[in-house]
């Protein structure tokens, strides 16, 4: 029945229906790139995520959003109007073949269409039904509106990101959604494990506020209740690690973090060797990071005195030779040209029919037996309608055409 099976894929044979906006597309990607048959279901004409700028070669187009292209690799795409009776019927038939549904609608919306978890579960008891919403399915704010920026605010990320004199700031690339999607993928796979043992699926209720709050846990409740200190923005240095931060070199910035007592000793020795400053060797600065906390600014002066004498690459290589955690502060071009990533063949070229080739960031993990791969580029809207509705559900070409004309597909 399956039109394609990829051998040696971890999730080969797992079928996923994705009804997801920007909150949940990365969840589908994580599973699709590991071999699951992820069928992306868009509204007729295609989802709004196709319009997220910027675009490939800076030319707008519904198949050219870089966000859309990246987030939908390895998926098949169909269109469907779930609010119509015919659309609902088709979705139920598809759900009966699925291991997982990923959805990002407001709580209760699919229930209202007769497409909620309880309905689908009756058709398919092993089904895992994963909802990714801003605040979760329950609670007084479940109908509040949100966005990645708002989740980053409420979840505690922005308060502790950026310069101490600057307003709170968010990370590039919608990281609240990325992390929520990753948690959703993990939870869905854990639910698969349970379903395989017991035959029972379940509803997974992901709240982006909660996944963000968990992500910021280094600054979280345990530490605060313990020491009464509410962490806030602190520039580039990490509050708990002294020294740490971005330091100037002759041609850019290098990042350093010292966490263990022996690393401080090694750094102090290097500073002394190069600058001749004796004071840096003072035993006052030795031991755990907390011993250095009162001297943070002074130590930063010593370190900058070292780093400013060299290029980023010199500090990086020599620092690492001394087992010190120095890394370059890389720009996008530097990441694209990074020799370590090149040696690991991190970037992969993907052919887009008719549109050319595009180099993609590749696997977040390497499995020896079931390697991550981009099976196909992101689908055009409804690209696999004939393959899935015709080939798998057995709809005739006339019926397909009629549904298309009626705006159901």
């Amino acid at each position, binding site marked *: 029945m399956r039109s394609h099976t990829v051998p040696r894929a971890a*999730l080969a044979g797992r079928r996923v229906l994705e009804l997801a906006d920007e909150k949940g597309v990365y969840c589908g990607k994580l599973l699709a790139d590991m071999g699951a048959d992820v069928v992306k279901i868009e509204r007729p004409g295609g989802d709004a995520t196709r319009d997220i700028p*910027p675009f490939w070669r800076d030319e707008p187009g519904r198949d050219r959003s*870089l966000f859309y*292209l990246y987030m939908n690799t390895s998926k098949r795409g169909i269109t469907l109007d779930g609010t119509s009776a015919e659309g609902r019927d088709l979705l139920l038939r598809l759900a009966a073949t699925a291991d997982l549904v990923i959805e990002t609608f407001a709580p209760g919306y699919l229930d209202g269409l007769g497409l909620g978890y309880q309905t689908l579960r009756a058709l398919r008891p092993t089904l895992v039904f994963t909802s990714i919403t801003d605040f979760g399915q329950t609670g007084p*704010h479940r109908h*509040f*509106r*949100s*966005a990645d*920026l*708002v989740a980053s*605010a*409420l979840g*505690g990320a922005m*308060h*502790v*990101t950026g310069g101490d004199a*600057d307003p709170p*700031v968010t990370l590039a690339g919608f990281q609240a959604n990325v*992390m929520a999607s990753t*948690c959703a993928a993990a939870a869905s*796979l*854990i639910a698969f*494990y349970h379903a395989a043992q017991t035959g029972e699926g*379940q509803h997974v209720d992901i709240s982006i506020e*909660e996944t963000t709050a968990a*992500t910021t*846990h*280094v*600054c*979280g409740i*345990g530490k*605060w209740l*313990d*020491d009464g200190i509410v*962490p806030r*923005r602190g520039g*580039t240095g*990490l509050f708990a690690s002294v020294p*740490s931060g971005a330091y100037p070199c002759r041609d850019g*910035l290098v990042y350093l973090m010292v966490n*263990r007592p022996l690393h401080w000793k090694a750094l102090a020795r290097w500073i002394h060797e190069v600058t001749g400053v004796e004071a840096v060797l003072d035993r006052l600065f*030795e031991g755990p*990071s*907390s011993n250095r906390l009162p001297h943070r600014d002074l130590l930063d002066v010593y370190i900058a005195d070292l780093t400013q004498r060299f290029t980023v690459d010199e500090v990086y290589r020599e620092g690492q030779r001394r087992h010190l955690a*120095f*890394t370059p*502060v*890389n*720009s996008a*071009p530097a*990441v*694209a040209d990074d020799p*370590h990533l090149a040696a690991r063949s*991190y970037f992969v070229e993907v052919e887009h029919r008719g549109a050319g080739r595009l180099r993609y*960031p*590749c696997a977040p*993990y390497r499995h*020896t037996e*079931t390697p991550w791969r981009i099976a196909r580029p992101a689908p055009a809207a409804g690209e696999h309608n004939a393959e899935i509705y015709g080939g798998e559900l057995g709809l005739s070409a006339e019926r397909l055409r009629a549904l298309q004309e009626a705006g159901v597909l």
Partner: protein
Amino acid sequence: MKQALHGVRVVEFSAGMAGPWIGRFMAYCGAEVIKVESRDYPDVTRLYVPPRNPELGIQPQLSPWFTDWNAGKRFVALDLAKKDAIDVAKRLVARSDVVVENYSAGVVDKLGLGYAALREVRPDLVMLGSSGYGATGPSRSYVTWGPNIEALAGLATLSGFPERECTITQYAYPDPLSAMHGLVAVMCALDHRLRTGESQYIDLSQFEVTVSAVGHVLLEYLSNGHEPRRRGNRALHAAPHGCYRCRGEDRWCAIVVASEAEWERFCDTTGHPEWAGDPRFADLASRLANVAVLDSLVEGWTSVRRDYEVMETLQAAGIAAGVVQNVEDQARRDPQLAARGFFEEIAHVKKGTVVATGIPLGLTGTPGRTGRAGAMLGEDTDYVFGEVLGMPADEIRRHVAAGIIQIQDQRAEQGEGSNGSSR
């Protein structure tokens, strides 16, 4: 109802957050997670000195990070420099399904605990190695921590205000990010193993995970050849889209107006219907072109109001708004997190109880729970070696006497750290 990962046993050689957080989640879902430490190389989060009482020195059981990221686990310690200890570790792995390690790349191989060796004793083992750069490549043995990876992966230069070259989080974002990707990777391998019985090794590079998480941003350079601009809190697809100052010290509210209908409601709600008719703000393109003026007008409205009032007022009009909350706000002033029971009180051997951050997996059919908070080095020596391995009590005693199995000396712990000599 059995928990989702009931029957799965995990052995962890790990430190910090990127490794331990994987086991934390698995233990929460019912897996038995055994953390193997070494007294000479304790988990770095055990090097905790209470900031209000530094004279107490290092307090390895009081670290709020250690107790949380290792909650629900079993604790044993082995002197992994000794061959007999490696044999004991292998006996543990032989009775386990998953090994998670995040030592520097190559360390477990040198110890004799690499994948090839462990697969011999457990033919269907799933093993994850998580390191800064991954197990191969020219920089594989380099040392990194979470913020290093933010810098290395480009996240630090892609994020933040245009005038700031480098923006860093205080929460070591690549650590939780890598842990969650590690959990996905392990569960994919377990799903494959369920159907095939096949073992495999997973090489996770925290550098690569983090580049993948901003892959769509990097794609702008890869496809169009120009560097993505830092936009601070602004966006190309919505305006207003920002973080606005409110009344009080360091109080802010994030606001996103996502459509023309929302923009009209925003103008009405804020009592500025004239903005809706202002040609500078007539549509998204105009608002983006005049975004500095727009943001200052919005901030004029927010800055005389309290943050929660701004949020409630805009939410009542169906506009996305959220207070820039700190941890105290989340614990004391967030009715949503409270209603969902996000924070979890768990038992702690010295403090009685501590509050743990919620594990946001949302498994409604098999809700997880957190056992005891992270405990003493060697706390579960008798259970793990006696019950899991079936080692007779006199053999355990012999191994302890020989320094192969290590237990925490309570008196040593009291005095530990004040001279800062611990590694």
